[in-house]
């Protein structure tokens, strides 16, 4: 069997690795135009800031691929011959396949702003993007970043590392308004301020203004304000790469449409990762999940199906993490940005340090846990996952909170004050007793 994978991102690579394990005899070819070897896209920022070099962001050394008989083709796939089961390549002869995985990822989303094609306007998704950004921001004094999401803060951090003046334009009333509740957003806002980022909330980009040489010189906001800048970072999300499917029988919407098995409308052709859109995602799950983790899980799942063990994609409780300058963020399960009927939230925040924890739960009954947000605290994934799968009652979670503590040794433990804060807010409930201190440390002599 010959599996051809377009895209050597996390989805494509995980599929290749998994299939190699399941089907040692299979021939597996990874095609990618972007880079000869797989790299960590979330690590691009560290290249710009000089924390890491290119070899450091490659998850595997170069010997890994031939040793595991994963063939790499560094080339652009220019078209698909679906009937003939062939992939057309720009610089190589066509590749025949028995199964095809489209893991083509995503690219920066632009909103057709006037002037968006000016020099110095760009997003950050690819290796080429970060290289261009490195060049284009040299000698620049003022930069604007549009978009208040994860990549927006990363861009701000990168630019601040090179000491540019940075203004962020955020459409919502607070940072990442579609995802974070206001308390969490306030802690992120404090980080942005502390690191010298100017943030304009409730502000939208209307137009990019250029100079005579075709370079960006300012942006105009929807409120008709002009902000001078010599570089503009676009961080308003990503859109799936659909070039390859154009003109084929493969159905697409915003992304490449796939069923539960991650198969497209053409049998034998699959899609996973940022480019895939599920036709019928379960309630509460997004059709497109543009994340590293979901890319990895989709890649693994689809490899089972391709290898002859049809496996529907079930990713289990949601999780994600990020870092906003110095503030670490982890989330597990579902924590909505605003109030939802029938659900409640308990938020604890340290009186002085940037630390916060939210427990989100179903109101009434057992008060089953629905999700957790942690800022500045590390939580143990396994424990949170088990609680969420079991729908653990809030009171149990509070009493066992120590089991989820993943902070390093000697870090102050806040479980007691978290539980005390809960009891203060709910004086009519019976008192809580903190059962477990920290996880493994408590079992030190067990």
């Amino acid at each position, binding site marked *: 069997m010959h599996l051809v994978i377009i895209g050597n991102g996390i989805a494509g690579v*995980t599929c290749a*690795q*998994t299939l*190699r*394990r399941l089907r040692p005899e299979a021939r597996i070819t990874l095609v990618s135009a972007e880079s000869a070897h797989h790299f*960590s896209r*979330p*690590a691009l920022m*560290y*290249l*710009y*800031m*000089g*924390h*890491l*070099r*290119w*070899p*450091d*962001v*490659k*998850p595997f*050394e170069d*010997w*890994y691929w031939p040793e595991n008989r994963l063939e790499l083709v560094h080339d652009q796939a220019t078209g698909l011959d679906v009937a003939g089961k062939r992939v057309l390549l720009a610089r190589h002869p066509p590749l025949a396949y028995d199964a095809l995985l489209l893991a083509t990822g995503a690219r920066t989303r632009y909103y057709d702003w006037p002037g968006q094609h000016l020099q110095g306007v760009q997003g950050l998704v690819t290796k080429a993007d*970060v*290289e261009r950004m*490195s060049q284009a921001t*040299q000698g620049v004094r003022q930069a604007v970043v549009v978009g208040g999401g994860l990549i927006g803060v990363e861009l701000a951090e990168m630019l601040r*590392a*090179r*000491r540019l003046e940075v203004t962020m334009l955020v459409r919502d009333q607070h940072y990442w308004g579609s995802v974070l509740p206001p308390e969490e957003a306030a802690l992120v806002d404090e980080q942005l301020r502390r690191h010298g980022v100017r943030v304009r909330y409730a502000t939208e980009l209307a137009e990019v203004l250029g100079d005579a040489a075709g370079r960006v010189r300012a942006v105009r906001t929807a409120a008709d304000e002009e902000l001078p800048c010599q570089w503009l970072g676009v961080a308003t999300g990503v859109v799936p790469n659909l070039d390859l499917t154009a003109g084929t029988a493969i159905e697409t919407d915003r992304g490449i449409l796939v069923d539960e098995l991650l198969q497209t409308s053409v049998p034998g052709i699959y899609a996973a990762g940022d480019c895939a859109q599920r036709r019928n995602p379960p309630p509460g799950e997004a059709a497109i999940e543009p994340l*590293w*983790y979901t890319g*990895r899980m989709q890649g693994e799942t689809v490899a089972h199906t391709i290898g002859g063990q049809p496996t529907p994609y079930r990713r289990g409780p949601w*999780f994600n*993490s990020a*870092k906003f*300058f*110095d503030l*670490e963020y*982890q989330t597990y399960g579902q924590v909505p940005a605003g109030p939802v009927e029938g659900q409640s939230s308990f938020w604890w925040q340290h009186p002085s340090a940037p630390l916060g924890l939210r427990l989100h739960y179903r109101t009434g009954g057992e008060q089953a846990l629905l999700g957790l947000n942690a800022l500045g605290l*590390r939580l*143990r*994934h*396994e424990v949170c*996952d088990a609680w969420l799968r079991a729908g653990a009652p809030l009171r149990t979670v509070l009493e066992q909170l120590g089991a989820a503590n*993943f*902070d*390093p*040794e*000697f*870090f*102050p433990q806040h479980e007691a004050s978290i539980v005390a804060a809960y009891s203060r807010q709910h004086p009519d409930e019976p008192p809580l007793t903190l059962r477990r201190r920290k*996880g*493994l*440390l408590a*079992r*030190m002599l*067990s």
Partner: protein
Amino acid sequence: MSFLAAYSDQPLAHPTPEPSAAERLWLALVALGLLALGVAALAPAGLRDTAFWLGLGLLSAGALGWSWRKFGGSRGVRHNFLWSRASTSRGAVAWAAGVALTGFYVVLYWWPAYLENLIRPLDGLSQLLRGRAADQWFLYGSFYTLAVLLMGGRALLKYRHSPYQRVRTASVMFFQLGLAWLLPGVLLALQQPEFYFTYFWPLKYDYLFPGGVQSLLQNGHLGAFMVGWGIIMSFVATPVLTYFFGKRWYCSWVCGCGGLAETAGDPYRHLSDKRREAWRYEVSIVYTVLGFIVVTTALLWLNAARGGALLGRFSDEFAQTYGFFIGSIFAGVVGVGFYPILGSRVWCRYGCPMAAYLGLLQKHFSRFRITTNGGQCISCGNCSNVCEMGIDVKQYAQRGEPIIRAACVGCGLCSTACPRGVLNLENGPREGRYQPSQLIHADSLRILS
């Protein structure tokens, strides 16, 4: 030329921003301090002491002031321009520093007479502490301790957001100052053997060689205590402590070599070679050194038991030869002199028999592991980058596997630097120690072989 590739990769980030005026001011003090020390080394006797102490004063003030300027601001690991600044990415400054350090070791070992002008100003201090005049080893020990303290101050500032790093840094500073500098001096003053309570066989191999034991035993009760201490530390305390805490209790909390690496070597930790090739060299060299010491110790005791019939005067010659190659060249010249080029733990990784012994215990008889947090790793590579022992930490993290490696000294930097909070140094039950996370399905493709 795959070997050179790792040394030539250019980072993306350039040019580096100019240091601020305040930073320059403090760095100028450091430079003036070095200049004054240079003057002291060459000056006539009259100027010597003043220049020496002025030099040390300026150097210390400059180093601490600069650290405070640089790291006193926002809290958190900030490695901006680490790989593009010449001083930390094997640029001209790094090579110059490496040559200067190596040169110092060469002069120290082979031509100490040239250090006379730096040794004499320490006579007063040496009389006070040790009741005798200074020699080149007192100079070396004093400089070494000062480096641990000053750069320890820097590390305390840089990592002050992490209680683990604060406690650990304070610990190496304490052990260097107290047990590797003050106490041996005091022992000398009391006409006792200059004994280092923080170094044990097989690192301080001669402490358990027949010759070493005999000479200690000539010192009455205290000598006997020292021999007993050495035996207990090597064969009882080391296995027990390593069982509970991993090799970190020694390598990154107590040991002086480790202490210097964790403080003065901290700016260079990322330079360690992470490639599989380097790991192959590591295991083939370091276990050979350990095996050599074990066999030699056994032979020497056999020889002693047979009244010297077996080896004759081999013992003395061995001590000299091994001491020269391993003690001077490996540990000193390459180990420390090459910090700015090869990273801070070259000796610990490739040459130290104690590290090899502790590593075997850690790998096979310990409760220590670095846990990875479920499926949260993004393969960014920050953990591998900061690992001074050259462990490619992300190989484990991205598969959800715990990190159980003989080499790991438990410095905790991978955990401190990880932007997703994935890594945690833990001591726990040995059952299931190797159990990978259920939330990520580790592929079975092998990495190290």
